[in-house]
């Protein structure tokens, strides 16, 4: 399935081709237009050029920081709380049916 396709050959740092932007947009579920592809490819190449500077840091033996607060395994008592009323939640949904979120079909024709 295309969704799981990994990126093809990595391009040199600071480069991001129009095709790569199109592929990333697809992975991100963004139906971008041709005009946006042209615009974003140029802008993202410039941004990528700037952010690639992180590569200059000497990070031998440096552990990554995922989070500023060193916390692990935050526990709380497993007490049941009332959930939000179903009708209130569904009132915010773009489409609801039979007390549920209504979604477009999930499987493609070929499935």
């Amino acid at each position, binding site marked *: 399935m295309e969704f799981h396709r*990994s*990126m093809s050959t*990595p391009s040199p*740092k600071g480069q*991001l081709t129009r095709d790569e*932007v199109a592929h*990333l*947009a*697809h*992975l*991100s*579920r*963004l*139906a*971008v*237009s041709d005009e*946006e592809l042209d*615009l*974003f490819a140029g*802008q*993202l190449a*410039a*941004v*990528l050029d*700037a*952010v*690639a*500077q*992180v*590569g*200059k*840091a000497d*990070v031998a033996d*440096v*552990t*990554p*920081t*995922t*989070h*500023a*607060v060193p*916390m692990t395994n*935050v526990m*709380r008592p497993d007490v049941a709380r009332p959930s*939000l*009323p179903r009708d*209130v*939640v569904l*009132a*915010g*949904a*773009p*489409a609801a049916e039979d007390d549920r*979120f209504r*979604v*477009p*079909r*999930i*499987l*493609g024709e070929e499935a």
Partner: protein
Amino acid sequence: MTTTENITSSSAADLSQALQAGELSSVEVTRAYLDRIAATDGTIGAYLHVDADAALEAAGAVDAARARGEELGPLAGVPMALKDVVVTEGVPTTSGSKILEGWRPPYDATLAARLKAAGTVLLGKTNMDEFAMGSSTENSAYKVTRNPWDTDRIPGGSSGGSSAAVAAGLAPWAIGTDTGGSIRQPAAVTGLVGHKPTYGSVSRYGLIAFSSSLDQAGPMTRTVLDAALLHEAVAGHDPLDSTSIDSPVPVLAESARRGAEGDLAGLRVGVVTELGGDGHTDGYEPGVLARVAEAVALLEGMGAEVRQVSCPAFDLALPAYYLIAPSEASSNLARFDGVRYGLRAGDDGSRDLDEVMALTREQGFGPEVKRRIILGTYALSSGYYDAYYGQAQKVRTLITRDFTSAWDDVDVLVSPTSPTVAWTLGSRVDDPIAMYAADLCTLPASLAGVPAISVPCGLSDGLPVGFQIMAPALADDRCYRVAAALEAAQDAARGHALLAGIATTGIATKENAPS
């Protein structure tokens, strides 16, 4: 004494006192703000949503409770505004995005619930860059917000609706959120006080997430004391936020009051070389550096010991941030799938979920949000992860180490809040890199999770300059102490608060001018 004439220029602390003393009613105060919003927000554009009836009803309820002799907290009856990233039950919440247009959330964010319980009166929801991505509020999907000091200029961002509202007298104070500087930079360019609390000290429950390891809500106010009071009202442990710190909030308002006495003897202040110091002045306006140098001299005059401190990894804060934040955003914004809330596009019965999702997101997100989602997806892709996201996380460690070693020698670090004063609307919208540079000085504290405040330090070319004070994690009280000392010294020298100058330079003249 606060009278009806100066309600909209009073500090929130003064309004609180007048309300408690019975000199003003909450309805009077609330109506004064609503009248001013009606008269001037057409020009400023601070609010996305104002519900005058609901505000007056809430104010009336506080007045009635006070008349009955009920025990009320100090903030009861004081109006406030919330950035539209804060989820509010039954009140439209968009995060500045079309994808959430018309959504009325079924619950309150913890900070909104706390402010409601304290009896504050919600005036409305303020404009912002879409999903808090931006430094000028021009990425809002809805409207332009103008800087009250000069309505041709940006109010900063992403909390630009909050900054413009408070600076223009359209709210006594407001809540903003700060991921890379979005409280501090808009506060700086509008002459306000803005504080980004220690990460984890204000609950993120009910804040629409941008970059979860960085997002933090905080106060945007006219005075340092107000910021401390509003911060105290929203801070504290929340079991609904698993990153919430379970430890007491330091005494903030009292630190501000003590700081205002002007004695900083023994305080060790480090001026960060990499943020506008020798060899690092590229991109910084001379006027900004001059005002900051004067502020440092004022601190020294109050007894502080000042030294230069080098934090070499800060040079890489900007690239690290613009990898980490988009990466987290690309994941966080996956929740906007056109199923549970907000927009759904292209659901004509023939398209499957993936196609509808892609069309919904294409139609619902603006260009900056799309750019960041694409960049984040790239930085997290297999084959690129180590070089980009992984490397940025290691740089984050280096930045934290620079802070940690600085705290061996100094109590606070200082710098400009932003390299420039407010720029002209439209001048950076086509250049993401120029826009990102506005965050140069605010990003290190965001990445390390330490508290940082922006306090006004004068004008350059008639526009406000912000002074940033950073402190160790959980030592937010130091930010308030030093900021209050600086504010008091400057107000005494100037003879009035900086914001008082806005009446002659900004909104008063512009709103009378023909459009």
